[in-house]
């Protein structure tokens, strides 16, 4: 009894066992956990080390790429297109935002009423909110990068417009590209021209280069060089002869020459540089000027410009400048930069992590902040009301009013997004203009709701005793399930408009929606059939014995039980539909994937080299949506209505 105490005849183990009876140090604590979970046996150790090596290499590579050389501006500069599609009029985006606020409100009200949000999710949301506020505030100020302007004798002169405050000092200097080191990654990778097509590299580019080499025509054209930038280290077969005779000229907004530097006179050692002070606030432009007599001179050089304010040449960014500095000058040249375009100033793979925070993360967070906080407020209000209704209200009445709210919200949302004839503030919007994440969610939500009745009919038809009906339903289900979705979308795009008179006017977004609905209905029918099969025969016999006819038996006895049992499977179908909506991107619909493809292949913006950033971002969005649905489905499986009922059966 010395070690053990007895309380009311209950045996309680020793509080502090003697050293001899304590487990060895290798079996408890961190070491014990490691031994038990990672290094249990030889095979275990080998697989741990193997997995760790692979994961480390992969994660280190990916993270360092994402934080150092990835250029995420393709995301935050195009959030509007990703959200509502490239065709959607930008002045009407508030309608989509309003519609999504309503949807968020109702979704979170339902979540609050029927379930609850886990603590960690709330914590995560708060954390994101704090990050949105804090990170843009504390991010380091990054100096404006040096603008590298490519000067070549046979390349069109581009006049570049820029803005300057009074007294700003801007330095221009020529750097001839004659040294070996100039041709490495470091020099070229900083510059990717607007017309760059990285995917179009190799054969043609190389052949044109090599042909020029053969004929002794130097230097390379800009497109040849930029096509081989970034990961493609390209050194010239021969050093170009440098006898450029060039100077830099600065013009004011009216196009008058203000100042011009001296000429380089064809000497690589003559490093001409000029510092210019802005006389007043306003728009200016600069361009290299070749000597008229020496137009045949060859050679390539960087014109480096320091201390110039650069900005993204998107519409809102430019408009902001126009408001402050007035109209930009008319540029008299064939291919001008209408503003100092930041896409010309890509980072060359050398970026520190603080710079990543201030240049990549902070602008993104600023861009989403308004939407995030309004959504957060609306969702919290909805969730709170749902919780109040759950614990205070009359449950039956509340359920009915919630369902009523959902039903009521659908026409309201339709009017908000599509518009109504007699409301001036809501002009009608063509369904073809819808796009982005909004269209993805709308397509999958409408698809799953509309396919539900069709799926139930098909499932009941397949279970029917009547051979003809059974045959027809089986035929439809099996044919649709037997062919790829892309084939059916092919039908929707090319054939459906001929099948029904007048379908030609129906927009392709709607046609794709119809195909997706029928496709989902066939799969849903199989899911529901699974539910119908688990209904015990006794249920139907009991219903018959009570005098219910076939219709009442199906509607009141069979279907409620069958559908409740397959709720998780229906959720799975929803996830699968959400993923499948991406296929309509192949048929010219700009939903999330289509919008991304459009942005990335648009030659005017020059994002062709940023494919990875774009697709990874939408991959993450799809993952979050599908994963949330999958988690919800799993919760329903274990704790939801389906699980409860299944126990009772």
């Amino acid at each position: 009894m010395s070690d053990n105490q007895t309380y009311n005849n209950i045996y309680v183990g020793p509080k502090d066992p003697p050293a001899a009876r304590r487990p060895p140090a290798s079996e408890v604590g961190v070491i014990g956990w490691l031994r038990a979970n990672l290094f249990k046996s030889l095979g275990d150790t080998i697989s741990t080390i193997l997995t760790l090596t692979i994961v480390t290499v992969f994660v280190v590579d990916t993270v360092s790429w994402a934080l150092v050389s990835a250029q995420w501006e393709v995301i935050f500069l195009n959030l509007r297109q990703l959200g509502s599609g490239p065709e959607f009029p930008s002045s009407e985006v508030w309608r989509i935002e309003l519609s999504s606020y309503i949807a968020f409100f109702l979704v979170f009200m339902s979540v609050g009423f029927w379930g609850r949000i886990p603590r960690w999710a709330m914590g995560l949301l708060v954390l994101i909110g704090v990050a949105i506020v804090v990170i843009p505030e504390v991010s380091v100020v990054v100096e404006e990068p040096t603008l590298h302007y490519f000067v070549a004798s046979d390349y069109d002169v581009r006049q570049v417009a820029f803005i300057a405050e009074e007294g700003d000092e801007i330095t221009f200097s020529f750097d001839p590209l004659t040294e070996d080191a100039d041709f490495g990654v470091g020099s070229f990778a900083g510059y990717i021209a607007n017309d760059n097509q990285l995917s179009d590299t190799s054969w043609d580019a190389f052949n044109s280069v090599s042909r020029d080499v053969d004929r002794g025509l130097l230097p390379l054209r800009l497109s040849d060089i930029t096509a081989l930038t970034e990961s493609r280290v390209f050194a010239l077969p021969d050093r170009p002869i440098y006898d450029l005779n060039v100077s830099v000229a600065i013009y004011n907004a009216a196009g008058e020459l203000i100042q011009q530097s001296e000429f380089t006179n064809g000497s690589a050692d003559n490093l001409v540089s000029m510092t210019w002070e802005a006389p007043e606030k306003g728009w200016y432009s600069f361009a290299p000027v070749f000597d008229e007599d020496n137009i045949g001179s060859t050679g390539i050089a960087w014109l480096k410009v320091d201390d110039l304010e650069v900005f993204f040449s998107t519409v809102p960014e430019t408009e902001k400048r126009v408001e402050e500095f007035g109209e930009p000058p008319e540029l008299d040249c064939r291919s001008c930069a209408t503003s100092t375009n930041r896409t010309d100033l890509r980072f060359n793979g050398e970026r520190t992590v603080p710079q990543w925070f201030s240049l990549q993360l902070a602008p993104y967070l600023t861009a989403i902040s308004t939407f995030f906080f309004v959504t957060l407020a609306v969702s919290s209000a909805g969730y709170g009301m749902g919780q109040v209704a759950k614990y205070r209200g009359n449950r039956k009445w509340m359920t009915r009013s919630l369902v009523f709210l959902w039903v009521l919200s659908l026409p309201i949302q339709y009017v908000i997004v599509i518009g109504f004839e007699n409301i001036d503030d809501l002009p009608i919007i063509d369904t073809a203009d819808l796009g982005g994440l909004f269209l993805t969610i709308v397509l999958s939500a409408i698809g799953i709701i509309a396919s539900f009745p069709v799926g139930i009919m098909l499932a009941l038809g397949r279970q029917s005793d009547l051979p003809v009906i059974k045959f027809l339903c089986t035929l439809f289900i099996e044919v649709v399930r037997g062919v790829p979705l892309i084939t059916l979308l092919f039908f929707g795009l090319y054939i459906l408009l001929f099948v029904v008179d007048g379908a030609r006017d129906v927009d392709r977004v709607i046609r794709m929606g119809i195909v997706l609905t029928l496709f989902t209905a066939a799969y849903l029918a199989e899911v529901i059939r699974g539910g119908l099969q688990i209904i015990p025969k006794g249920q139907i016999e009991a219903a018959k014995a009570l005098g219910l006819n076939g219709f009442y038996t199906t509607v009141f006895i069979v279907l409620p039980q069958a559908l409740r049992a397959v709720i998780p499977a229906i959720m799975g179908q929803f996830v699968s539909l959400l993923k499948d909506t991406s296929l309509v991107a192949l048929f010219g619909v700009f939903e999330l994937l289509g919008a991304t493809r459009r942005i990335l292949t648009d030659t005017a913006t020059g994002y062709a080299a940023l494919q990875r950033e774009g697709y990874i971002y939408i991959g993450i969005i799809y993952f979050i949506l599908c994963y949330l649905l999958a988690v919800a489905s799993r919760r329903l499986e274990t704790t939801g209505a389906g699980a409860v009922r299944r126990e009772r059966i």
Partner: protein
Amino acid sequence: MEFVFYTIVVTVLAASLGGIIVREMFVRKGQNPDRGLYLGTVLGLPGILYNIDVGNAFLSALVDGLLPLAIAIPLIAVLLPTRALATQHATIPFYRDVEVLRVESQVFFAALFIGTLILLWISLTGNLADSEFALDFNIYERRFGAGLSEGIRFDTDWDWFDELGENPIAYGTWVTILGLVGFSGYRYFRHETRWIAIACAVGAAALILLSPIIIPFLEDTFTRYLQPFSMTRAIMTGFSNTLRIVAVSIVASTVVGVLVGIGLLSNNYLVRNISVIFTEIFRNTPLLVQLILIYQAMLIILPAEFEGAEDLALTSPDSILGFTLHEELYAFSSVGFKHVSLEPTQSSVWLFGSMILGVVVGYLVRRYRLHLQDTKGTPARTWRFVVPIFVAFTAVGWLIAGKAFTADYPGVERVGVRFEYVGGSVISLPFVATFIGLSLYTAAFIADIVRAGIQSVPTGQIEAARSLGLRGGQVLSMIVLPQALRLIIPPLGNQYVNLGKNSTLGFAIGFAEAYTAVQLANNESGQSVPFFVGLMVIYLLLSLTLSVMTNLVNSTTRIRAR
């Protein structure tokens, strides 16, 4: 359009009415009344078809629909021998008789369905005729203008069947293969899977033995860029590419899926969680996004075709691409995966023959050892006998054959100012990207199926095996997997069918599979309807084949009822 509608209405009414009248006749004669209803059904349908081409007025439809029925039904009904009815139940009025309603509703639905189809078809052909693309099923014979990036050529200048007919060995091969397929099919329907396995083994052996003849055929016909002669041949080429990608992806996804599935249940913390992350990521993102991302990332990351080509201009052509030519086995670039190709020579028949012999002898020895174990109790230790036997036979075959393969290494040659790849084989980048994407996506689903299958094996089985002294690997391979397979294989088959369907997404990254070929043909000709029919046939056949093959495997793992 109106007359079709009238025709449908009239025929449905006529069929119903005729059926009811005849039924009443039978009932009064005390015979089985169902026969009349079925006759009404059967005769009602041709009635609809008969009416399509005739006039467009309500009256003609009425006459055409009603007359044949009115004449034919009573005639046939009376002429047919009938069985006397046991009970008399003529008192129920027909509109409340369940029997009548059942049949009539079916007639109604069938007529509605067929009528709708006819309606849509007429509308379709009419609209197409109004547009510039009148329906034309001869489009398949038309010339295919576009090119395909890779595939087997089915061209007139190299006709498979002509050449095979001239070559008695190859001809024999085809006859043998067809015979074996027929035999297997026959046995399949008789549920004798063992014979099918033997037939497959014989077929595989024949193929391997004849590979020195067959492989050069394939090598000749497989090209990087080709312009098929006609639409049909283009789609055949595309379909051959589909089959290639499906075959390799099925193997890869199964291997990865089973490994990850076992990893999901691993006791090792790291392995288990990595497996979970893998499955969640690949299951919860669209395959299309994965494919495009993989393809584009490879295009950007991988070195361009002629990286380091400056050496070419300055130094000897032996040191391009960072390796010495004619010794390198493979190279990865943005064009694809270049690798050495091994071409079997005529003498490789000896090597393959002795390898097959080694397998056969090994199998016999294994049987003998198992027999000894059963009768005398000596441990079988089969692998200790089988592996050395196989290795010995292979070595002997290798020695006899002498030079069994000729290796062809990849390299670059300069032709004037251009550079051309010579030697080796290339697996194109779209193929590689589609392969990786499809395999990993399907593997994630297979992993979950495997996990569920293994978890379904009762713990008692594993504990019993452990207590009998079996090791971890033995428990998995001898106790758990055989039992889990029964649950794993049916959903696995579904995944293979899905994989076959998902292979169409290679279209998005320019892989020349069947859908790509059809899309190109459609873009060229605008004949979407014939091509849509073709697509349906191709993919229904593919799905059917894959599910039949799964059923075949499934029938071998089923528990046999005693």
